[in-house]
C-alpha cells in the first residue's frame, strides 16, 4: 500500500501529472487575463473558453519539424529542454499542496528551491551559447545579466521568511505561519513586494522579458529551438510560472493552510493552495500588462540601486522584529 500511495503521490497527485496540467491551466489563465486587459478575447475555440488551447499548442509543437543548427553544440543543445523540464518537475515536489509538507520534504529544501532557480538560469545560458548564433548569444548574455540583478534580492527576500520563522524547511515555515499569522502581515510585506518583482524577472515577463525581447533579438535564447524541444522549453517555463507563484503563496500567504473544517482537509488544502497561487498569478499578469519593457542596463541599475538596498532593509527589519 505504501509503495502504491507514494507512487500515486509522485506521478499523479500532487506529483507530475497534477503539475503539468496545472501549468497548462496557468498558461491559459495568464493568456486570457492578459487578453482581457488589452481589450482582446484571447484563446476561445479549443475546448470551453479556449481552455484546451495550451494543450493543443503543445501537441502541435510536438508534431512540428525539429531542427538542430549545423554549428550548434549538439549534445548541450539537445539536452537543455529535457534538463529544464526535469529540473522544474523535481523542484515542484517540495511544494506543499495537499498538506503542510510536499511530496518530498527535508531540512534545507528552501535552499534547494533557490538553487533550482539559479540552475534554471544556467540552463538558459547554456541553451543560448550552444546555439552558436547571434540572437541566442545576446539573449543568453542578457539572461546572465538579469541573474546578476535579481538573484540577490530574491534570495534575501526568501531569507527574510526563513529568519522570521527560524527554519529553512518549507513545512516548518508553513506551520509557523499557521500559528503566527501569514508572513505578509508582518515586516515581510516589503519582502513580498521584492519577491514579486524578482520573480517577474526570473520568469522573463514584461517589464523584464529582456532575454527574449521579440522586437530586438527575435526569441532571444530560444531562437534556434523548434518542434519538440521548443514544446518542452515552453512547458518548463509554464512549470516555472506555477512554481514561482506557488512558492510566493507558500512563503507569504500560508501555503495550503486556511480555515478548513477538520473533516474536509483533503479537499480544502489543495483548494486553498490553488486559490492563493492563482491570486499571485493575477498580480503577476497585471504587472505584465501595465508596463513597457525596460532596457538591460536600466534593469540592472534598478536592481542594484533600489531592490538590493530595500531587501537588506527588509532583512534588518525582520531581525529587529524577531528580537522584539
Amino acid at each position, binding site marked *: 500500500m505504501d509503495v502504491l500511495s507514494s507512487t500515486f503521490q509522485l506521478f499523479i497527485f500532487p506529483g507530475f501529472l497534477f503539475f503539468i496540467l496545472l501549468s497548462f491551466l496557468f498558461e491559459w489563465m495568464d493568456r486570457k487575463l492578459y487578453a482581457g486587459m*488589452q*481589450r482582446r478575447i484571447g484563446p476561445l475555440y479549443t475546448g470551453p473558453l479556449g481552455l484546451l488551447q495550451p494543450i493543443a499548442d503543445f501537441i502541435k509543437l510536438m508534431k512540428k519539424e525539429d531542427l538542430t543548427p549545423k554549428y550548434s553544440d549538439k549534445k548541450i543543445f539537445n539536452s537543455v529542454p529535457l534538463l529544464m523540464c526535469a529540473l522544474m518537475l523535481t523542484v515542484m515536489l517540495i511544494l506543499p499542496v495537499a498538506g503542510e509538507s510536499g511530496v518530498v520534504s527535508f531540512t534545507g529544501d528552501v535552499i534547494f528551491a533557490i538553487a533550482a532557480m539559479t540552475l534554471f538560469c544556467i540552463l538558459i545560458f547554456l541553451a543560448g551559447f550552444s546555439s552558436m548564433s547571434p540572437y541566442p548569444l*545576446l539573449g543568453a548574455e542578457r539572461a546572465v545579466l538579469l541573474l546578476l540583478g535579481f538573484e540577490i534580492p530574491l534570495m534575501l527576500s526568501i531569507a527574510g521568511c526563513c529568519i522570521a520563522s527560524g527554519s529553512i524547511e518549507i513545512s516548518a515555515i508553513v506551520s509557523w505561519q499557521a500559528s503566527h499569522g501569514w508572513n505578509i502581515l508582518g515586516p515581510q510585506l516589503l519582502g513580498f513586494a521584492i519577491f514579486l518583482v524578482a520573480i517577474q524577472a526570473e520568469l522573463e515577463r514584461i517589464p523584464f522579458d529582456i532575454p527574449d525581447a521579440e*522586437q530586438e533579438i*527575435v526569441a532571444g535564447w530560444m531562437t534556434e529551438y523548434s518542434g519538440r524541444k521548443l514544446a518542452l522549453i515552453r512547458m518548463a517555463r509554464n512549470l516555472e510560472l506555477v512554481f514561482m507563484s506557488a512558492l510566493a503563496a507558500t512563503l507569504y500567504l500560508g501555503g495550503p493552510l486556511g480555515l478548513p473544517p477538520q473533516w474536509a482537509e483533503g479537499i480544502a488544502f489543495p483548494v486553498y493552495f490553488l486559490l492563493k497561487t492563482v491570486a499571485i498569478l493575477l498580480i503577476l499578469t497585471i504587472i505584465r500588462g501595465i508596463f513597457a*519593457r525596460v*532596457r*538591460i*542596463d536600466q534593469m540592472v541599475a534598478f536592481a542594484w540601486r533600489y531592490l538590493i538596498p530595500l531587501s537588506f532593509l527588509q532583512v534588518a527589519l525582520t531581525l529587529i522584529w524577531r528580537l522584539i
Partner: protein
Amino acid sequence: MSSSYERIFNLPLGPQHPALKEPVLLDLKVEGEHVVDVALDVSYNHRGMEKAAEYRTYVQDLYLIERICGICNIAHTLSFCQCVEGLHGKEIPERAKYLRVIAEELERIQSHLLWLGVAAHEIGFDTFFMYIWLDREISLDLMEEFAGNRITTSYNAIGGVKRDMTPEVANKMKKGMDKLEERVKFYKKVVLSERTVMKRTMGIGILRRDAAIQLNAVGPTLRASGVDMDARADDPYAAHSLVPFKVVTNEGCDAFSRIIVRLDETLESINMIRYCIEKLPSGPLLQRLPRRVPAGDFLTRVEAPRGELVHFLRADGSDKPYRYKVKTPTFSNLAPLREMLRSKGKYVVNVADVPVILASIDPCFSCTSRTEVVKS
C-alpha cells in the same frame, strides 16, 4: 587587428525580423550591447511602379499610384492628380479642395495612430498597442463612411474627388472627431506620465537640428528636431491656404519628441477636419479634364503622414506619362536614420534601442524601394 575589434560582431536585423513590418536589412556591427556601425539595404521590394506607369493611361495610373503605399494612398493619389491638373493648368472646384483636405487629414490621423501603436509595440508595451489600434478603428470606420473604403480608398480623381460628403456622414464625422480627440488626449497623458515609456524613448535616436537639415530629414522626424517645415504651410495645395493650422514642432530631437509631435499633429488634424466640415462650400465635385495631357514637366510636394512626398511627371502630349518619378518620405529619412543608429562619443545606441529608433522615423520601405542603380 586590435583586441577591441575582435569583440565586434555582426547582428543582422532583417530582412525578416519581428521588429520589421517590411523587408529591410540593418546590418548592425555590435560590441556587446552597443551598436558601433550600421549598413542599410532597403531594396528588397522593388516593384517597378514607375516603369509600369509609363505603359498605362493617366486614368489607369491613378489606381497604380494609389498602390505604392496602402497607408498613405490618399497622399499619393493627391500628388498624382495635382501633377496632371497642373499640366492642364486647371483649377479644381472649391468643394473638392476641401474634401481633399478632409480625406488627407483623416488619413494622417489613422496613420499616426497606427504608428503610435507600432511604437508602443517596439518598446514592449503591448497593452498600449492594443488600445490604440482599437481606437484607430474609429478613424477607419469614418474613412469607410466618407470615402467608401477603409484603406485603398480611390477617393481622389483627376479633376476633383469621387464621392460627396452627405450631411449624415458629416454628423458622424463630427462625433467621431470628438471621440478621437478624447482618446488622443488620453494617450498623450499616458505617454507623458508613464515612466517606462519615457525611459525607453527619451534621449534615444538623437537627431540634432543642424544634422536634420543637413541630412534632409522630412516630416515629423524633422519637426521633432525643432525645424518648422511642413509642405502644407510652406507650399499650400488643395484648400490648405484657407484652412488654419499650426505647424507642430518640438525641440527634444529624440524618439520621445517624435511621439509628442505625432500626437499633437493628430490633434491638429482633428481640428482641421472640423473646420473643413464647418466651412465646406457647395458646388460640383469634379472638373472634367481631357484624356491627353499637354507636354511639360510638373513637380508637386504633398505632406504625407510620414513627411514630404515628392511626385514628378513629364508628359509628352499623349494619354500616357513619358516619365513618372516618386520620392517617398522614408527615402529622405534614411540618411538621418543611419546617423541616429551610430554611437558617437557619449551618445550610445543599445541593441534594444534599434527597433525604437527605426520605428521613430515611421518607415515604409516598400514605398521606398524604387531607386535604380545604373552601372556604366
